[in-house]
């Protein structure tokens, strides 16, 4: 089972990289961009057919290593 995992800084944590990218997009003349937040993306294949079990494995990976929950939050979805 294949997962897409996204890690982003929590809303209350400032993201200066996202802000710099946001400003750069503005200076390129790209209209309509309100905010940009930068994050991380992981593609993970789990050797498990049962959805609940596979999700549990991904969740554990996020909590134990992929995200630092002091500053980050995670989300994931199944792609295959």
């Amino acid at each position, binding site marked *: 089972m294949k997962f897409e995992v996204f890690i982003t800084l929590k809303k209350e944590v*400032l993201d*200066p*990289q996202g802000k710099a990218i946001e400003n750069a997009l503005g200076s390129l003349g790209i209209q309509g961009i309100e905010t940009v937040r930068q994050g991380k993306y992981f593609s993970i294949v789990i050797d498990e057919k049962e959805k609940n079990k596979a999700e549990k494995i991904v969740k554990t990976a996020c909590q134990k*290593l992929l995200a630092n929950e*002091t500053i980050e939050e995670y989300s994931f979805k199944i792609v295959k």
Partner: protein
Amino acid sequence: MIANIIVFPGSNCDRDIKVALEKFQIKCKMIWHQENELPKADLVVLPGGFSYGDYLRCGSMASKSVIMNEVIKHASTGAYVIGICNGFQILTETKLLPGALLRNYMLKFICRRINLIVKNNTTPFTNKYKNKAKIKIPIAHNEGNYYADEATLKKLEENEQIVFQYCDENYEINNNGNPNGSSLNIAGIVNKKQNILGMMPHPERCIENFLGEADGIPFFESLLK
């Protein structure tokens, strides 16, 4: 006094801290991160550097290495642990210290001498400094922006866990003197029991008068007290 210095792939201040500790007659053993036992020691040092090339998040990979289980055990006995720079990042990633170190607010690597106030001189690491001592110690980091939520910051203040704070040329604690955007200008903290210290500045880099600044000397003398 005996110290174990943990060496990760990418550590680059491990020999600097060894030179500094030995100057103060502290015996050092270098411990590779894959070891699963720590020799008996009074102090464990997590040195500065770029462990695991800063992959994922600074300090995150190192915090999961085999030896860290032993470091956590060592810390739980009340023995001393010092994390400098990358070591501080590793300590927050292992949750031995609260909070996290974010990318510097201005997105720049900063390498310069900085003014600090010793906010708490009653810790085992700062007892040779005067109360509110004004000192200069070098910093060299890209991710030193200390972050913790409001409740944690309040606790740090209440329990006097803030040890070093960044300040300006006149030793005022304000935004001007904050190089990286750290909450409350925090440059170093201890745990509640005061046996674990994490700090971004490098005291091991200022222990010789001929180098211009030697404000790191009382730091190492404090350990001997």
